[in-house]
């Protein structure tokens, strides 16, 4: 039975609401308001996990986001279990199940702990040095290294939780709800600014909320009492939004910030069902006030990592806020006054304090005097040289420091304890400031990096700006806020503030020991088992930059990102290398500040909302007729329509045969359509396309190739002249948006003299394409009044028509080589016209076909698809489309590039046809083409771009790009595949109806 270390004087924990939870399978109890860490400590459980490398027993060390050791696996559901969750940040809820990480079979008996005995042989960079030999063994080493790497277990099934995103815009964003954040929020809100206040805890107030010490008073009240009234007063502001349980994750340039709000993580399993778990706020703030506070530093000495070694300020929070004693015989070890606040709190709560070990010679501050008055024993100028105990600290060993603090002198004494509070001073949380691009400066007096210059509209206030005394926090914050918000006065001008002032400072980065450094384990990075020895080893081996030392030793590379370890690493490097810390700089603080779940990053962009989709007006018809869909850009295009158990090949063979033999129908609505109007529309098209447009008659259509400035094919399509100054251009499906942007860009920047206007009408029109020998008969049933004779309605022309009094445009154009028509009608009638055509075509066995058949039919005719047969490196000449380049036009986009020495090379890759020796052998698209198979290295001459089995030709056909291909027609080549080499013959690109007889059939 575990001891209950709960006291009953906490106002923040509801001790009437008992909550059961499981840790490592054992049922335990805590109270509403507890964190997992406080509840475990209340149950006298310190050992929560094992360290990464040496598998040393580790316990809860802090009470916040900087926790390096108390990281646990939460939940057992394979879809929702979460590794590396900080016990200090998990609010206790009914049904919580947590387990220790990095241990087997249990945290109490861990086989991996054998690593600790071998630790002298596995220092920093052991892996880099050891697993290099022999090089061929790396894959074998890798297998074992991968198995031992990582902390915790990832979920193996899709996350069932719901996540969300929201955008927020405000005048002032305040990060941190401690005393300085509260002052900032109230001041901003009082001045009618749209204000948002964020805090990662479940309530506001920070550490001042539980500061009931005579030494810290504001207007004669305890600072905590004063602050509570200030927090209550915030409720009166409608223009102030307060978000608790919300962690600022990232601070990007121009005051764009991301914050994660935990909405249901603190609720019981039943309460959180069907609710959003976490929300990622995307915040744009005109001004940002960072009031993120500071972190207490640990002290670096031999065996400073045992369970029971806890930051002094955390011990204070556990006793004052959670009502939990971290031990029954507590020793405190410090280099500053903060530990005395803890000592007084513990003393008032009736906890035995062995002593305070202080490395300083003396301190005359009021808080120290208060502690002395309470009879607390203080060892001045002493240090802890060792700790004892395996799964929990049991005693410490003390020695006196030499005058210069570099060695220990005198005799060693021992002190029994079950908890050691350590305090090494304070590190301002400057992470967010630097994420935003701010530069830091170094303050020598207390060895802190502080915010200096920033490009964005922001300030840092309070302890994150280096103010660690209560009066400095209030006065300096007030002054900074007024300047920042351009205010003349505030509510915080004439406060009477009493506080203890720290009079003496002393800092030793690596505390001396009575043993040589090599015989000690002074841990810097508690999660990654990086010690001061490792850092010194890295320096000996020539690593000078903090970034290099970090990577060589893994200091600061754990899930905590070295929040506790980085400053000491810097200090030891600086001391050893004989340079100033300020000159060394820091490692880069990258977002997120604390780990984000993938769910929070993704939000509701999962399942059907993974990506946006576009549907044609006929989509429902395709679905009803069993279509399989293909993603083309964001469009869902009907791919093929399997009947019964047909696979894609069978369906495509049937569809393409039907289209050639009788009639096929295709949904071509996805093609981009751009309405072009203006007196210079013809000249515009002359400049855009490679061929000439001025003489295109009204009512006629023309195919065009559009090039990039580099002369390479960019897009293609048919453009129709509707009237003198009115055209409609079609583009490829995937290229529509880019083509419109490019053309609009040209009109606005290069050709502003042209009187031309573009309007996207892609979605306005549905396009029904019917093709095949019977297409004319079908169309004549749908539009009986339309004269479809070749004379009145020849290939590459258009007619305005009415279908049941609804206007439409009918183009006689073909992408299949068959006699074809495209009906363009307002989208709202698209499905109805499709159904009408289908009904009219039934007697001709009209067959709906999808994009796969469309590709096959056009490949039979050698028609290219921009983006499939081209890849941004093909000119029209390469495609054997020299005929489309006007020799008479003064200019068009890409013309100059067509005459560069590289583009006129004759041995460029050129489009050719391929026929396999075995007519049933279908080549793989992307397969390489070679002329010799025995040559080493083998020379790749080109690759297959389109390949199909043609049921109409009863053989395999392919298009390819091939070096010097134009001159190689009739020659044999090889396509080497994994299991065999396929023989092919180079041919013309047109496989079917070279005379174009079918177009006019």
């Amino acid at each position, binding site marked *: 039975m575990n001891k209950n270390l709960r006291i009953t004087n906490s106002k923040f924990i509801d001790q009437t609401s008992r909550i059961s939870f499981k840790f490592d399978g054992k049922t335990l109890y805590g109270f509403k308001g507890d964190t997992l860490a406080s509840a475990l400590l209340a149950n006298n459980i310190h050992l929560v996990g094992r360290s990464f490398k040496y598998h040393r027993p580790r316990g809860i060390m802090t009470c916040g986001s900087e926790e390096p050791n108390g990281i646990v696996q939460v939940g057992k559901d394979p879809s929702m279990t979460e590794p590396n969750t900080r016990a200090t940040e998990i609010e206790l809820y009914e049904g919580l199940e947590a387990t220790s990480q990095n241990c087997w079979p249990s945290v109490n008996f861990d086989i991996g702990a054998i690593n600790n005995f071998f630790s002298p042989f596995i220092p920093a960079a052991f892996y880099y040095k050891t697993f290099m030999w022999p090089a061929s063994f790396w894959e074998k080493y890798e297998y074992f290294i991968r198995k031992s790497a990582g902390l915790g277990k990832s979920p193996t099934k899709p996350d069932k939780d719901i996540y969300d995103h929201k955008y927020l815009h405000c005048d002032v964003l305040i990060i941190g709800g401690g005393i300085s954040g509260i002052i900032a929020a109230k001041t901003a809100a009082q001045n009618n600014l749209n204000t948002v206040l964020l805090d990662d805890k479940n309530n506001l107030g920070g550490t001042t909320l539980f500061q009931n010490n005579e030494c810290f008073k504001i207007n004669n009240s305890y600072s905590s009492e004063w602050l509570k009234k200030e927090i209550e007063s915030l409720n009166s502001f409608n223009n102030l939004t307060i978000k608790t349980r919300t962690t600022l994750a990232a601070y990007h340039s121009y005051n764009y910030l991301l914050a994660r709000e935990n909405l249901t993580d603190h609720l019981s399993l039943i309460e959180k069902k069907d609710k959003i778990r976490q929300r990622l706020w995307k915040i744009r703030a005109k001004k940002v006030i960072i009031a993120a506070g500071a972190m207490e530093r640990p002290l670096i000495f031999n065996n400073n990592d045992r369970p029971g070694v806890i930051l002094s300020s955390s011990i204070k929070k556990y006793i004052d806020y959670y009502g939990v004693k971290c031990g029954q015989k507590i020793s405190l070890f410090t280099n500053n006054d903060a530990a005395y606040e803890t000592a007084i709190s513990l003393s008032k709560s009736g906890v035995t304090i062995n002593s305070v070990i202080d490395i300083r010679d003396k301190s005359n501050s009021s808080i120290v005097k208060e502690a002395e008055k309470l009879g607390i024993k203080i060892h001045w100028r002493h240090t802890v040289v060792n700790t004892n105990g395996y799964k929990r600290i049991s005693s410490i060993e003390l020695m006196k420091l030499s005058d210069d603090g570099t060695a220990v002198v005198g005799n060693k004494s021992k002190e029994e304890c079950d908890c050691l509070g350590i305090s090494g001073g304070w590190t301002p949380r400057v992470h967010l400031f630097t994420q935003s691009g701010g530069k830091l400066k170094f303050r020598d007096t207390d060895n802190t990096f502080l915010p200096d210059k920033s490009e964005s509209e922001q300030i840092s206030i309070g302890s994150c700006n280096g103010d660690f005394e209560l009066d400095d926090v209030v006065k300096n914050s007030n002054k900074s806020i007024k300047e920042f918000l351009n205010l003349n006065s505030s509510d915080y001008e004439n406060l009477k503030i009493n506080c203890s002032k720290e009079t003496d400072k002393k800092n030793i980065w690596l505390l001396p020991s009575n043993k040589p450094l090599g015989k000690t384990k002074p841990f810097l990075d508690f999660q990654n088992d990086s010690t001061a020895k490792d850092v010194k080893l890295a320096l000996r081996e020539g690593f000078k930059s903090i970034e290099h030392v970090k990577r060589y030793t893994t200091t600061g590379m754990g899930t905590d990102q070295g929040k506790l370890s980085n400053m000491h690493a810097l200090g030891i490097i600086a001391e050893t290398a004989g340079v100033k810390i300020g000159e060394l700089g820091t490692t880069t603080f990258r977002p997120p500040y604390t780990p984000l779940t993938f769910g929070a990053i993704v939000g509701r962009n999962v399942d059907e*909302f993974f990506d*946006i989709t*576009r549907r044609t007006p006929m989509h429902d018809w395709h679905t009803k007729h069993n279509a399989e869909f293909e993603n083309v850009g964001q469009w869902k295009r009907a791919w093929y329509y399997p009947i019964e158990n047909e696979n894609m090949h069978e369906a495509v063979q049937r569809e393409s045969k039907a289209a050639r033999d009788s009639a096929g129908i295709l949904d071509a609505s996805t093609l981009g359509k751009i309405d072009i109007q203006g007196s210079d529309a013809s000249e515009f098209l002359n400049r855009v396309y490679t061929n000439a447009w001025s003489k295109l008659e009204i009512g006629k259509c023309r195919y065009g190739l559009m090039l990039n400035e580099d002369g390479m094919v960019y897009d293609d399509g048919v453009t129709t002249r509707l009237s003198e100054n009115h055209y409609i251009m079609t583009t490829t499906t995937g290229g529509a948006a880019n083509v419109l942007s490019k053309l609009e860009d040209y009109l606005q920047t290069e050709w502003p003299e042209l009187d031309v206007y573009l309007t996207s009408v892609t979605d*306005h029109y549905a396009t029904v394409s019917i093709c095949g020998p019977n297409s004319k008969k079908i169309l004549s049933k749908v539009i009986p009044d339309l004269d479809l004779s070749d004379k009145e309605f020849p290939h590459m022309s258009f007619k305005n028509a009415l279908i049941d009094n609804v*206007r439409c445009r009918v183009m006689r154009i073909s992408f299949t080589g068959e006699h074809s028509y495209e009906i363009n009608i307002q*989208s709202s*009638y698209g499905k109805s016209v499709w159904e009408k055509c289908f009904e009219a075509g039934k007697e001709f066995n009209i067959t709906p076909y999808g994009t796969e058949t469309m590709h096959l039919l056009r490949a039979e005719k050698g028609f290219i698809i921009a983006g499939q047969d081209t890849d941004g490196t093909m000119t029209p000449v390469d495609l054997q489309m020299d005929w489309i380049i006007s020799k008479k036009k003064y200019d068009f986009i890409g013309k100059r590039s067509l005459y560069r020495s590289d583009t006129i090379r004759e041995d460029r890759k050129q489009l050719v046809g391929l026929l396999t020796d075995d007519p049933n052998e279908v080549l793989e698209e992307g397969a390489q083409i070679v002329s010799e198979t025995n040559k080493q290295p083998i020379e790749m001459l080109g690759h297959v771009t389109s390949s199909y089995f043609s049921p109409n030709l009863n053989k395999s056909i392919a298009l390819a790009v091939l070096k010097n291909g134009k001159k190689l027609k009739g020659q044999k080549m090889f396509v080497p595949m994994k299991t065999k080499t396929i023989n092919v013959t180079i041919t013309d690109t047109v496989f079917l109806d070279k005379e174009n007889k079918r177009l006019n059939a």
Partner: protein
Amino acid sequence: MLNYNSPIMNAKDYSGIKISEVEPIIKINLRGKNRDFITKIGKELSIIPPTDSNTSSGNEKLNILWLSPDEWLVYSNDKIDLKNNNSLEDRLFDQISKVKLGSVANVTDHWVMINLKGDNVFELLSSGCPFNFNDFKNSKGAVTQTLLNHVDVIIHNKNINDLNLFVRRSFSNHLWSWMNDSARFI
């Protein structure tokens, strides 16, 4: 007869928000630069196209939304008669495009109009729209072209908590589905 099919044909009521497709209404895209173009539009529609960015003008029948310095979207307040829905387009085309004053393009089916009404409309939009609605929500007639769940939309602030949103037809089903999914969490 051909059947008319708008893509959504639905209306939903959630806590503090009603969303509904409003179709068929006529929508015409106008482009032009010179003063004669503005004058002619004003004469034909009895509304002067707004020249201030992201604003609109309107009367009982029509609204004109500013889209760019030389582009406007005209849409009707009332549903149109399907049997006679080309008259406005034809009239404007004859008066503007044919005489080389600018361009007139029928975009009635290019855009789908969704009306959002209720106290929580901006809550819904903030779930997927990066635009700052703080000033917009109090500016009757304001227009913005922005993204909603990655989809391009035009939003017209008709009245307090009463918005008309225009989305390209092909995206409309997806956006409608997303709006309904978002609305259930408000």
